[in-house]
């Protein structure tokens, strides 16, 4: 057992940190510490192109597709330095972390040639069309339909929680291509250009006041018949493969933004004098223990090596960090008292810790609710019996 990274990994870290610091204190200083995921769209596009030009946009992708073939450890190091530098949320993350890996794994050569380079170059942005009003945790209940008409798929239906769709060029959609099919059978994974008259977006305002999500309506939306990934009727297998990518590296690098939030909580405790309250002190110590444990567990997962199936400790991470993050928001409210309830800004925008308290309610819901995660942990981690399925759809 050995702590710390190798000299090569530390050199990689310095290279990333130096480049990021130069950018965040130079041409992209206006994006530093930006918390909103939807503001300053033009600057964020320019930032994606700058990342691509310097070879940092898709480091985890294979070299053949424009990446660096970076190891899991290097990807985590980059994510850590990215957050430490105060660089903004990636407008391209759905393309880079979801659409790209899916195409690399399941796509045809023609699809890879068409779609991967513009993602790597920061030129085309993606949205995810999975959830529907009737298909949340039960994703197999998708009702959006697609039928072939000549050389084109024609899509009708209604997706929801489509993050960043307002900035996207393309959307991947899980749609029912087999008439009368039910559940995971008869679904296909389609790629659609999102800017067409038959697709309508309606922003959804969240409880913290921001509008990161959309509802997306398809009324006879069209795409070429070749834009189906993994073969007609194999959408479920493709979608499940993609969810595995989503639960991979993506969550490991967020530790650094948690560190910044924790430090803000400590600062608030000192500033308000609540740092003398033994209950608050105990809460801060618990939060710190959780913060470090998330990192320790991530290090264990990393050391287990690449290509392993999700280990037991890796399965536990989503619930662990989501609960931790919510508890940190609650602790922040206890420390700040009624000052947390007001803002100097117009338009229902709140400072970091109040926003943390509100926005973290989503953490135990998206990416698999805590309840779904506990089913997964119980069934795959502990070998307990699977949930019975109801027949009524």
């Amino acid at each position: 057992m050995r702590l710390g990274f190798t000299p090569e990994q530390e050199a990689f870290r310095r290279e990333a940190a130096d480049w990021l610091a130069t950018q965040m204190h130079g041409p992209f200083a206006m994006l530093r510490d930006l918390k909103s995921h939807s503001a300053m769209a033009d600057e964020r596009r320019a930032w994606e192109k700058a990342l691509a030009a310097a070879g940092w946009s898709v480091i985890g992708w294979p070299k053949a597709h424009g990446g660096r073939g970076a190891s899991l450890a290097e990807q985590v190091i980059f994510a850590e330095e990215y957050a430490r530098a105060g660089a903004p949320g990636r407008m391209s993350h759905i393309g880079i972390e979801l659409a790209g890996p899916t195409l690399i794994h399941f796509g045809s050569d023609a699809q890879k040639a068409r779609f991967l380079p513009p993602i790597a170059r920061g030129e085309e942005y993606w949205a995810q069309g999975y959830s529907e009003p009737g298909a949340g945790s039960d994703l197999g209940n998708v009702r959006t339909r697609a039928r072939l008409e000549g050389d084109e798929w024609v899509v009708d239906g209604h997706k929801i929680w489509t993050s960043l769709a307002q900035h996207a060029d393309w959307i991947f959609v899980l749609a029912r291509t087999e008439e009368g099919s039910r559940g995971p059978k008869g679904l296909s994974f389609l790629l659609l250009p999102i800017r067409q008259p038959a697709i309508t977006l309606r922003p959804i305002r969240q409880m913290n006041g921001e509008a990161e999500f959309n509802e997306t309506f398809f009324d006879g939306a069209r795409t070429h018949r070749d834009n189906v990934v993994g073969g007609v009727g194999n959408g479920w297998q493709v979608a499940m493969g993609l969810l595995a990518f989503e639960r991979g590296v993506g969550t490991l690098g967020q530790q650094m933004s948690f560190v910044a939030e924790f430090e803000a909580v400590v600062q608030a405790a000192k500033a308000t004098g609540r740092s003398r309250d033994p209950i608050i002190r105990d809460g801060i110590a618990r939060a710190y223990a959780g913060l470090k444990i998330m990192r320790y567990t991530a290090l264990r997962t990393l050391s287990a090596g690449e290509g392993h199936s999700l280990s037991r400790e890796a399965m536990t991470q989503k619930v662990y960090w989501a609960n931790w993050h919510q508890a940190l928001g609650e602790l922040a409210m206890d420390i700040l008292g009624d000052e947390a309830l007001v803002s100097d800004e117009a338009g229902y925008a709140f400072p970091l810790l109040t926003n943390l308290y509100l926005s973290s309610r989503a953490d135990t819901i998206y990416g698999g609710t805590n309840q779904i995660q506990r089913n997964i942990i119980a069934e795959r981690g502990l070998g307990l019996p699977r949930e019975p399925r109801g027949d009524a759809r």
Partner: protein
Amino acid sequence: MQFALTQEQEMIVETARGIMADFRPSLRTTIDHPDGFDRTQWHTITAELGLGSLALPAEQGGAGLGLVELSLVAMEMGRALFPSPFLTSIGAALPLLRHCGSDEQIDRHASAIASGDSIAAVASGAKLRLEGGQLSGEALVAFGHVADVLIVLADGQALLVPTGGLRIERLTSMDLSRPLARIGFDGTPAEPMRRADGVDRALDEARVALAAECVGGADAALAMTVDYSQQRIQFGRPIGSFQALKHRMADMLIAVEAARSAVYYAAAARNEHSVEAASAAAIAHATAIDTFEHIAAGMIQIHGGMGFTWEHDAHLFFKRARGSATLFGTPAESRARLATMLGLDEEDQ
């Protein structure tokens, strides 16, 4: 970075797990013995297998390994609820001696303790007083009734006291697998150990070893609970198929894996002389003990009426967890130290 066990460490785990599996069937007879442990088993793990000298430096006759290796052994002992003075004598008294004692004191005691020939115990608590080099008052001491020598912590100092002539009474102990004795001092002469600054470091090591033992216990308690929930049929289904129980056991696994991460890191941080060693020890101690108590309670609940009986082992885990929660300080005390390390006592700038 390789935050995973080496081949040599895996072998230590295998050895310890094997011998603990051999001893496990005798658990009930061992805890009924007046000593509370089995001297033949003690001889096997110390004199024969050398588990007591793993973390002792080579120049003191040990294997020259560290807290990671010791913790792995403690974890296996915890899994089996192994009743023995290993944790108190090897896990706590030995590091106190090594980090606080003079060369002569170490020479006199360390190899005898490591080889199991001599059993040491640790006495501390608010009722102890040190005046003019003499101890008075009393303390509850785990395995104090079988100790040959005591390390007493009083007035911020560590002292050596032979047990001959002391008032020692083994008490009926809630934690059956780690019994306590009351030891009284009446102006007892005590031999001071010079380096008082070694106390914190030694106690950190003891707390990490204890945390490892707790993770082992929690792991075993969860595994037994999962097994039972798949055997026990109610309403025509294994009770482990009910979501109320699945989710509780999922939460138990989340807690065990978190505690295991904390223990691995704290032990490795000490082996590598990391600046994080003290805070990591506090995190491991607080987390592992809370986890063990939480899981042992869940074990009883999920075993239902059977879990409340004397015959079933669930209560042995539950009681070991509670005994551990006060052995080398409480989880809340570790968090209080952590709060101080985080700078909460400093004025805001």
